[in-house]
């Protein structure tokens, strides 16, 4: 690694950390300065960064990443139910469980590459989703979703046949004599994990995750992953066994997803199987592509933009549109409202799909590529300008 890129990376990291910490202030003018949405930005940012470590660096397109998100969520809620409402054990346990799960799946799926890999990961994700709905109901609570409940009465806590779906144990909380009132809320040593404290918890983890992703991308391991992306055959011919590198990347990426899933449970202690559905996997692919796969900052940018527009667009209804088009004559107004009504509110997914196509067709490198193009154009202009100036001066 040369010195120049190291300083660049440090600057990038510091700017990123600053932006994330200042996000509540910076995003208020855009109407996104409230904790629920900011939490989503941070959580899906982590998810997308993790996905990018696999897809962006190695080029292996996984269509089943939502499975790890779901597993992380379930693991966290179980920790809340069994150990403590403190988030630390939940987060650690989720990451470990997701990592093990990823290791198992990766070990099988990474035997194949290309489209076969995509389909195998998809198959595993669908299997997990179907099982979560059917046979694994004792663990996942099926369609209702797994929830945090009231503590079991103390005289029953020692009872062996607790109905864990309806009553919680929380051994650690009981041991330390934590008093609960009403619905239990997740906390970090007493700080409630809702609102801004919740966001800052996610934000700190996002910054750490981002820092780690820079380290990975710049390390020898990261270089190896990029080599796999550009030409795996050649790498094999030089005597390198690529499988361990791929599996490591897959596991790291699964752990990121598990962390994101755990944070979803931290901010709202509820886990449902729909988080594992393949549309959810598609969403993280879209976030990464939109921002720019293989870039450092792109995935976070994509995740933020998609969650932001989802929030804005879903909230628009016909009344808002009528107000917006009120300058038009009545008949035109109706048409305009009907046409744009397709794309907002419940039709937000249509916009998402179109956006997806436009990005893949015209900007396969994502928004980061777009910025690069614009930046290059300006640079070139400046250069030609300056050469002209110097010519004139010479004359």
């Amino acid at each position, binding site marked *: 690694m040369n010195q120049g890129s190291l300083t660049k990376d440090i600057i990038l990291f510091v700017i990123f950390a600053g932006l994330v910490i200042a996000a509540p202030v910076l995003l208020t003018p855009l109407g996104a300065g409230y904790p629920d949405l900011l939490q989503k930005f941070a959580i899906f940012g982590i998810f997308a960064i993790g996905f990018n470590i696999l897809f962006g660096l190695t080029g292996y397109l996984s269509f089943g990443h939502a499975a790890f998100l779901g597993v992380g969520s379930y693991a966290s809620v179980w920790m809340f139910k069994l150990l403590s409402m403190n988030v630390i054990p939940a987060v650690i346990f989720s990451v470990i469980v997701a990592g093990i799960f990823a290791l198992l799946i990766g070990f099988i799926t990474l035997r194949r590459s290309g489209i076969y890999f995509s389909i195998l990961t998809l*198959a595993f994700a669908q299997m997990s989703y179907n099982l979560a709905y059917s046979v694994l109901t004792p663990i996942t609570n099926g369609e209702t979703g797994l929830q945090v409940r009231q503590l079991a009465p103390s005289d029953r806590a020692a009872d062996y046949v607790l109905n864990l779906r309806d009553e919680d144990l929380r051994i650690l909380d009981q041991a330390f004599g934590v008093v609960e009132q009403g619905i239990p809320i997740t906390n970090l040593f007493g700080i409630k994990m809702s609102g801004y404290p919740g966001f800052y918890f996610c934000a700190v983890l996002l910054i750490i995750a981002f820092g780690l992703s820079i380290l990975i991308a710049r390390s020898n391991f990261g270089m190896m992953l990029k080599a796999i992306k550009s030409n795996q055959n050649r790498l094999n011919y030089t005597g390198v066994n690529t499988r361990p590198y791929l599996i490591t990347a897959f596991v790291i990426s699964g752990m990121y997803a598990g962390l994101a899933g755990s944070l979803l449970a931290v901010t709202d202690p509820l886990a449902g199987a729909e988080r594992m559905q393949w549309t959810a996997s598609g969403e993280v*692919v879209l976030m990464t592509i939109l921002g720019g796969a293989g870039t450092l900052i792109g995935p976070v940018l994509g995740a933020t933009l998609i969650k932001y527009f989802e929030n804005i667009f879903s909230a628009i209804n016909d009344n808002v549109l009528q107000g917006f088009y009120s300058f038009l004559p009545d008949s035109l107004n109706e048409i305009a409202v009907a046409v744009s009504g*397709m794309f907002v509110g419940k039709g937000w997914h*249509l916009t998402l799909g179109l956006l997806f196509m436009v990005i*893949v067709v015209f900007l396969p490198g994502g928004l980061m590529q777009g910025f690069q193009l614009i930046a290059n154009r300006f640079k070139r202009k400046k250069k030609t300008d300056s050469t002209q100036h110097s010519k004139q001066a010479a004359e």
Partner: protein
Amino acid sequence: MDAIFLQILNGLDKGGAYALIALGLTLAFGTLGVVNFAHGALFMLGAFCAVSVNKILTLQQIVLDPTQKTAWGTPLEIRTPYVESWFGDFGLFLVDYSVPVSLLVTIPFMLLVGIVMERGLIRHFYKRPHADQILVTFGLAIVLQEIIKHYFGANPIPQTAPSIVSGSANIGLWIGLGESVVYPWWRLVYFGFSALVIFAVFAFLKFTTFGMVVRAGMFNREQVSMLGINIEKRFTIVFGLAAVVAGMAGAMYTPVLPPDYHIGMDFLVLSFVVVVVGGMGSLGGAVTAGFLLGILQSFASMNEVKSIIPGIDQIIIYLVAVVVLLALPRGLMGRKGVMED
């Protein structure tokens, strides 16, 4: 024995649908080399062709009959479909047969959709990596799905089979297995229909000059174009044909399963698994694997099997796919050199 035979029958119609979609996917892949994630959406479009045709045919004319009164004392409304008042018995026949009749609309419509899709979008992706193809067609699938959801709502819309085939066939009696083996007529029709379509597609590729050129093009595209044949144009038509096959499969499937906007996605995931199990690029493999997996799935949903391995009916197809892919990297009948990156 009865139960086993019944499960095989049960698997046939679903297997037929898988086989038809997988056939279209393989055609598109074998000719254009494109991984089409929007193929399930084409299946769904076909299903909604049937729904729209049925809606149009059952548009009703309301006549007030002052001689008859309802319980509230208002004149009785007599509703008759327009086609009935125009064509009489033939109109009734049309309404009854709305699903098969809808094929007349589905075929040209899907051909158009397929050709427009290939010319407008897919052709720009021949030289792009497979990941890009997957992504752009995935986006297209979302778009098509959301448009259908906007116009038809999110709920499944049940369709009825023609009344002549509405009951169940007593297949058991035909082959001497007793009365316990009964099977809905329409699903039998669907199986026959899918077999016919599959046969037609194979015959078309095997016995016509057009099919011969297409097969040659699948084998070696450059050489065929060097012979002065416009292979691109023929591949476009083949893509349209694949869309027609998917659309017909969807339209005819509506009486079996009421279509909703995400029926395509549900079938697509399974069909991809079917294609991969059959072997990428092998038409015979796609058809075989389609029926095989359909039958396996119906076996797995037997109560006897479920009591041994709970939940197996939910995951059997994926499980088979994983095992096949790990044991036979090219699938059941995959050709060498196809998609081996």
